[in-house]
């Protein structure tokens, strides 16, 4: 990484640490939510931005992890130290099963993941004797971490921040590794990678499971943030919005999904306070993004920077 990038990261980290000092509870809460959904978008983007496969079932992992943690804690009194890893495990396990979808490509991959996602939503929604149906599971307690109860918006925000810092560092190592390179190779031309002797299927399988793990992590954070979970968390709109967030921010980057999440959730909260047509506004954002900003905020910023740099060198 260049010095400028390190400086950028430093500034960003300082800004992130300072958020609760000036933002107030509401904004701190909203930013926490943005970070959590940004993580979900990042999970989706591992498949989308690197392997070139658009999954619309990641809300399923997110939701199953959230439900597992919630049900264990609320109904069985299991402590968070066990319930949270159990949630991660359940979501990731589901990822191992659903990873069969990587046998398909293109539109078939989109459709099969859509169907798989609906299975999970349908079971959560309909199997109400176990999942609580539409009501979901409420009153999930916030975890206690080494004696520190994370029950204020500020404390929980810092907790999410720490988790994210670790995950993002690992994610960066992952995508920069030969594994990440192979994924991007598959995206560019799978037949070439196969003829070069790469086991493309196995790479995609592993990538899918890792991305399910990340989505599960987002799900566990989400259930602690919101303190309840219902089948909406597994629904198609959540999955497709995560895709949109990744694209809006800049697919294939680390920061992009978080920017996308910020723009999207910020817009939704802002718009819903004064416009009745907010579903339409969200729809228009979908359309506009695809038509005019397919590379997202990060792509746009990179283009602007590149232009400025070339401008500076010719001056």
């Amino acid at each position, binding site marked *: 990484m260049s010095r*400028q990038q390190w*400086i*950028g990261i430093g500034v960003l980290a300082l800004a992130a640490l300072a958020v609760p000092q000036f933002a*107030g*509870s*509401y904004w701190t*809460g*909203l930013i926490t*939510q943005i970070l959590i959904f940004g993580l979900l978008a990042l999970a989706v983007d591992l498949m989308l931005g690197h392997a070139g496969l658009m999954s619309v079932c990641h809300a399923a992992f997110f939701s199953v992890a959230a439900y597992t943690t919630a049900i264990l804690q609320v109904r069985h009194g299991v402590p968070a130290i066990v319930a949270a890893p159990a949630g991660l495990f359940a979501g990731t396990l589901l990822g191992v099963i659903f990873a069969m979808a990587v046998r398909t490509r293109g539109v078939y991959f989109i459709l099969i993941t859509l169907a798989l996602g609906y299975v999970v939503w349908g079971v959560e*929604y*309909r199997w*109400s*004797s176990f999942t609580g*149906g*539409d*009501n*979901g599971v*409420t*009153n999930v307690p916030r975890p206690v971490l080494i004696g520190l109860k994370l029950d204020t918006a500020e404390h929980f925000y810092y907790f999410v921040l720490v988790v994210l810092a670790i995950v993002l560092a690992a994610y960066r190592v992952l995508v920069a590794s030969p594994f990440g390179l192979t994924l991007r190779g598959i995206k560019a031309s799978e037949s070439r990678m196969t003829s070069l002797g790469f086991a493309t299927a196995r790479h995609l399988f592993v990538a899918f499971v890792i991305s399910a793990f990340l989505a599960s992590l987002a799900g566990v954070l989400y259930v602690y943030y*919101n*303190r*309840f979970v*219902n089948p*909406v*968390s597994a629904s198609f709109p959540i999955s497709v919005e995560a895709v949109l967030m990744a694209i809006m921010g800049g697919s294939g980057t680390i920061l992009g999904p978080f920017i996308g999440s910020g723009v999207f959730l910020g817009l939704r*909260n802002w718009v*819903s*306070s004064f416009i*009745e047509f*907010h*579903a339409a506004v969200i729809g228009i954002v979908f359309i506009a993004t695809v038509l005019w900003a397919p590379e997202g905020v990060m792509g746009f910023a990179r283009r602007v*920077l590149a232009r400025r740099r070339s401008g500076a060198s010719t001056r």
Partner: protein
Amino acid sequence: MGFRNRQPRAQWHARALTLAIGTALVAASFVAQAQTGPIRIGVLAPITGPLATPGAEMVDGLRLYWEQVGNQVAGRKVELVVADTTCNPDQALTQARRLALQEKVHFLLGPLCGHEGPAVAQVSKETGVPLVMDCAGADTVTKWDRTPTVVRTAVSASQIGHPFGDYLYNTVKARNVTFIASDYTWGHEVAGGAMKTYTDAGGKIAKVIWNPLGTKDYGATIAAIPADTDVVVPVLAGVDRLRMYEAWFNFGMNKKFKLHAGYWLHQDVLPQLDDRAIGLTSNAVHYAAGIDTPENRAFTDAFAKKHKRLPSWFAESAYTAGLWTRTAIDSIKGKVEDRDAFLKAMRTVQVKGPRGALKLDAYDNPIQNVYITEVRKIKHPVLGDVLVNVPIKTYENVSQFWTYKPEEFLKRGPYKR
């Protein structure tokens, strides 16, 4: 990333400074005005989503009340800040936090959907902003999971179920009943309450069919009704009501079974029905547009004039919540900033709304009449020929605990499917 351009940066500083001063001035004036400025009420209703129509009814009812009293109380103006919960607890939570923390409302009013209730109560607990719970009927809010800052002005779900079970056994003389109920908390608790009093009296249950909200095809449901059923009882909400109605007549079930609904055809769905609906027992609920009192006639006429339709219980509940909160605010001379005083006033004042006399019990739930209603066709002065729900039996001053001792009821736990 380089900061090469110094000029704009200086400008930015200047702008930031102006902004900061501006904010400080606004904040200062806000503090100074706090006692005399407008009273802000945060309204949580589903403006979009599956229950958008009841949501609109709720907002219409509330606005009508405040317009009638000139949008003011105790010399202060009243502002309604409406937020859309989309009938999703997640969104309800976010919007409630926004209203409480960002919009600085004096109290919250709403929500409508049962499962949003506990989520919004959680925000009231977190922030201390009082919540006047409107239509959302989750039993637990005024029973097992009470919050000191929450009072309810509408109804708790099983409160209307209990009298209906009694009605089924003692008036209808049903002995072997099939329930068709919506599979979510509201359905569980209304149907559960009815089943409890009905089976306590000695009735038998042939079958309970739980359908998720939005079940598209009631053909399958109707085919599952046991043949030895003597009365079929729908307890349904949302789009399912109309689908059940169509399937009931199209499958010729009206010739096979008797039907008495615990919760089904409210006023909002009646304009869509035809004359086959006349004579059906439509609901056991705490309000019907056909109640014959001066208060209700004044309300329904005003509502019909403005909206060209008759109000459902969602509109009445919000209207009465307006009346109730205004009476309370008046009694404390407009000082809503004193949250304890406001809540205490809400708990002590008594009001007479379109649906009858109301007061809170010791558990913050209204004691009120429950009406068993029937669909009839009337000639309305404004609307002409319309279908309307008319009370055929009134259970007076029903408590949320019915005739049980509160302690026993609480020990028994909530109604579940």
